């Protein structure tokens, strides 16, 4: 019997010996992105036309004569010779880190470079040169993804890494200072970064009217006097409220799209845009275009689960708003859409980039009863600019050009493929 007690004791003692070993551990492995910096001097020195680069993450598009300027998000601008729309040629690339928006007037291209703006001479597209850097005109872009800039360097790229940490379960940990933002936190940045088209493009944040360049940030409207084209001067900054997304000029008005509505500003005094009226709508992404009587606003549901004013942004629609009384715009009709984004209008024809729903072309002669003329499927377009029978469409798959001179027989003219990373 004594022997059994001994054995039992060994068992119990084992429990106490092992007690000190029991700690639960958690090993976490996560991906992070770190910025790659270059000195400002080095970056500015490299802002010039260089060898063409493949299109990868295209942003806004600006058309000037026979040239198409395509933003490569946060990288720079592709220059495409479009003298023959059936065979456009990617002829050069201008490296501009942090670039999202562009605008062109005559031989001058304006582009943002994080907080700064650069002015480029594009009179010779094979020898584009930097004329001026205007510092700190977009102060809201003084950080990117949690990284603040300093006065001596720019972020020119990002590297992807992976790290592992181990800790006892229940311990608090502090992550390293790396990119770690959720989709909803970045929705505003996304809006700024989605691919867009310039020259009165519906999703642009830069637009030029006569001698003024107007830019919208997340919360403000800035008027730059560009009478001296290479020397833009910021003359006025207006506070607009939060979540501003797009700007569209029509005659002496600016139509400004925000996540919660559309604002109309008069630029009869171009130096001092003045508020005329507004139209509120439910959230979300909402490029706007206008003609004499109507504004066309597309609302797109958030795909990342983001909400707006506490409400999930779930609507996909086209709102047509009567703006004959600018001080009291009124909703005329709502049309259901699939995933609407950029839009363009030429005469009575309304072109809507409906994401996975394709490119839709409507007869908009009667806004109460839009008639679908054609749907171009198999592409996921997100912005468009229509000029003189030629529609330039930015889609996930590439930049397309369609000849719509015969609206009943729209034909694809060319495609520049996008080489996604």
């Amino acid at each position: 019997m004594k022997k059994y007690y001994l054995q039992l004791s060994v068992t119990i003692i084992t429990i106490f010996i092992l007690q000190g070993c029991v700690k639960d551990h958690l090993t976490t492995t996560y991906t992070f992105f770190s910025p790659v910096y270059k000195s400002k001097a080095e970056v500015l020195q490299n802002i010039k036309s260089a060898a063409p680069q493949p299109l990868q993450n295209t942003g806004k598009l600006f058309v000037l004569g026979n040239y198409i300027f395509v933003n490569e998000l946060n990288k720079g601008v592709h220059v495409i010779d479009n003298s023959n729309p059936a065979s456009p040629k990617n002829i050069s690339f201008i490296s501009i880190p942090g670039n999202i928006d562009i605008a062109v007037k005559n031989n001058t291209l304006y582009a943002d470079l994080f907080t700064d703006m650069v002015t480029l001479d594009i009179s010779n597209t094979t020898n584009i040169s930097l004329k001026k850097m205007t510092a700190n005109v977009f102060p809201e872009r003084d950080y990117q993804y949690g990284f603040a800039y300093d006065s001596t360097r720019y972020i020119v790229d990002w590297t992807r890494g992976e790290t592992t940490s181990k800790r006892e379960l229940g311990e608090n940990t502090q992550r390293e200072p790396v990119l770690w933002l959720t989709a909803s936190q970045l929705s505003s940045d996304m809006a700024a970064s989605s691919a867009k088209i310039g020259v009165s493009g519906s999703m642009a944040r830069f637009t030029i009217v006569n001698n003024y360049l107007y830019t919208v940030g997340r919360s403000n409207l800035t008027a730059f006097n560009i009478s001296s084209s290479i020397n833009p001067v910021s003359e006025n900054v207006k506070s607009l409220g939060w979540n501003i997304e797009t700007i569209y000029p029509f005659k002496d008005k600016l139509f400004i799209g925000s996540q919660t509505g559309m604002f109309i500003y008069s630029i009869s005094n171009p130096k001092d845009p003045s508020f005329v009226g507004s139209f509120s709508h439910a959230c979300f992404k909402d490029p706007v275009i206008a003609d004499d009587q109507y504004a066309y606003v597309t609302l797109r549901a958030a795909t990342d689960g983001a909400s707006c004013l506490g409400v999930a942004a779930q609507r996909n629609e086209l709102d047509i708003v009567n703006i004959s009384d600018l001080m009291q715009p009124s909703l005329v009709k709502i049309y259901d859409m699939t995933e609407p984004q950029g839009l363009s209008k030429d005469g009575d024809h309304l072109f809507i980039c409906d994401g996975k729903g394709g490119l839709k072309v409507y007869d908009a002669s009667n806004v109460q009863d839009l008639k679908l003329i054609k749907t171009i499927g198999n592409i996921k377009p997100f912005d468009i600019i229509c000029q003189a029978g030629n529609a330039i469409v930015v889609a996930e798959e590439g930049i397309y050009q369609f000849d719509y001179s015969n609206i009943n027989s729209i034909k694809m003219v060319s495609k520049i493929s996008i080489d996604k990373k």
Partner: protein
Amino acid sequence: MTRILIFIFFRALYFPVNGQVVKNSSQLLQRFHSFNTVHILNGSSTTSLAINTVNGFQFSRFFAGIGTGFDYYYQTTIPLFAEGRFDLVEGKNKLQLFANGGFSFPFSSKNRQSEGKTGPYKTGGMYDAGLDYHLAVKNEAFILGAAFSNKQVRQMIDNNIWNPVLNQVENIPIKEEYSLNRIVIRIGWMF
């Protein structure tokens, strides 16, 4: 009857592995044992329960078998393992040293600790080592034991973040690997 059925099952497993032909089934039946235990698991995160069944054959002072069960600690898992035992002290009542190792399969796709963490679970590893005291009751035995137990739980947690390289939101999962160490008090029955 149950014992015979379990025996038939394990005999079927046993033969292909060893490539042997055992002529005397009753002899093998005598070697067959089934350990069925309830575990009280105590770790730094929580105290919980598990149930196990291990079935195999005794050869002299050695036992080899395979086991499975349910482990409710932290995140419910189903272990599948091979186990070896050695009789430290022989007699009517005996003290057995044992160790096992194998896989820990996730039972549920839901994170019990944090519902906000969604994403697939992956199979982890597991091992136990300890001592069992067998108190003989006729040809069977009551088991009281203690062990150290480890199981790993792995989850790939959905993580939608902005990818500045691609300029788009991307689901880049966070890999969480839990290594859960527990002291186990084992109570059960061997037949």
